[in-house]
């Protein structure tokens, strides 16, 4: 029974878990009642009526297991991203009439899984924000879908750009809801904006930094790893202490 109750958000459990378990002990639910509990948990997550309050002792609450797991998966994704870039940077040199590049096909599996794991972390960051967080959740959905597209079709440059831009929306929302510190947001912005700005400028042919060869291209793309690191670390660490906040009284 406690497994069903664990579906409820932490703030709800802090407030109601004890008496709720007593009720369930007095009147064990039938299958319909169990379904009603699951439905209640979904409602409590979508329409929270109880605000989370920090531990009065001031110690931060431990991260929930799913949050921490998503964080470690994201960090693993960052490692795979680096592996993908190392493999790609050592791929066969292809010389074309317009220039040369390294064939990074061998890195595709690592690249795809890394992006998939980044999507996992980003969705976790979005879900960790107080409801409704519609912008963050919509952005996470867009980024996850478009990111998956980019994982399978790396040549669709703008798919990657859209995926990372949506990720910035999730991060700004996390910062606005006090889930993220200003430092974390700053690192993410640098990690997204600098590599993408360089790729856009170079890709447009407006300017090429001196010495930018086929190997350095992968170093620029590889620097996106900061994004995996900051998202993963933000999920693995204990949640930031935050004040009790008003929750919309709407159902």
């Amino acid at each position, binding site marked *: 029974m406690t497994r069903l109750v664990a579906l409820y958000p932490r703030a709800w459990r802090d407030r109601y878990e004890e008496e*709720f378990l*007593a*009720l*369930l002990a007095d009147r064990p*639910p039938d299958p319909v009642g169990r379904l009603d509990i699951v439905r*209640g948990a979904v409602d409590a997550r979508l329409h929270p*009526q109880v605000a989370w309050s920090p531990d009065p002792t001031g110690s931060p609450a431990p991260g929930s297991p799913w949050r921490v797991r998503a964080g470690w998966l994201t960090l693993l994704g960052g490692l795979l991203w680096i592996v993908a870039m190392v493999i790609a940077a050592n791929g066969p040199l292809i010389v074309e009439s317009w220039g040369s590049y390294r064939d990074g096909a061998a890195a595709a599996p690592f690249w795809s899984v890394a992006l998939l794991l980044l999507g996992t972390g980003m969705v976790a960051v979005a879900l960790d924000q107080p409801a409704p967080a519609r912008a963050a959740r919509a952005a996470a959905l867009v980024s996850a879908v478009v990111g998956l597209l980019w994982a399978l079709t790396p040549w669709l440059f703008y798919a990657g750009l859209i995926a990372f831009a949506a990720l910035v929306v999730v991060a700004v929302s996390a910062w606005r809801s006090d889930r993220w510190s200003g430092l974390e947001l700053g690192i993410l912005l640098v990690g997204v904006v600098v590599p993408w700005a360089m790729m856009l400028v170079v890709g447009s042919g407006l300017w090429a930094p001196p010495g930018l060869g086929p190997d350095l291209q992968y170093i620029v793309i590889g620097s996106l790893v900061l994004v995996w690191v900051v998202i993963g670390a933000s999920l693995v660490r204990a949640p930031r202490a935050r004040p009790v906040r008003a*929750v919309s009284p709407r*159902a």
Partner: protein
Amino acid sequence: MSEGLPELGRFAEPSIYILVSLSDGPKHGYAIMADVEEISGTPLGPGTLYGALARLERRGLIEALAPVERRRPYRLTGLGATTLRAQLDQMRGFTRAALDRLGETRS
């Protein structure tokens, strides 16, 4: 402060039952469930009960008392009583109008 109960969506009807149940004195969750089942003839699921209790408590229509062992009783507040009375008056007016019309149709 009173926002009415219809805005509680699917919790509106269970909320009225709960307010009615608490109108004759404080009760804890299990007692409310049993009472509501007796009043309405329909069992109230535990998830629905606590979804409604949380909403009513948040709106100040009920308040929690000190727990007795693990069971926490709830009681109706003044605002809760006023809101319940308004709801019941509205329902009475609606019922009367509906019965009048039904009578007119039949006659």
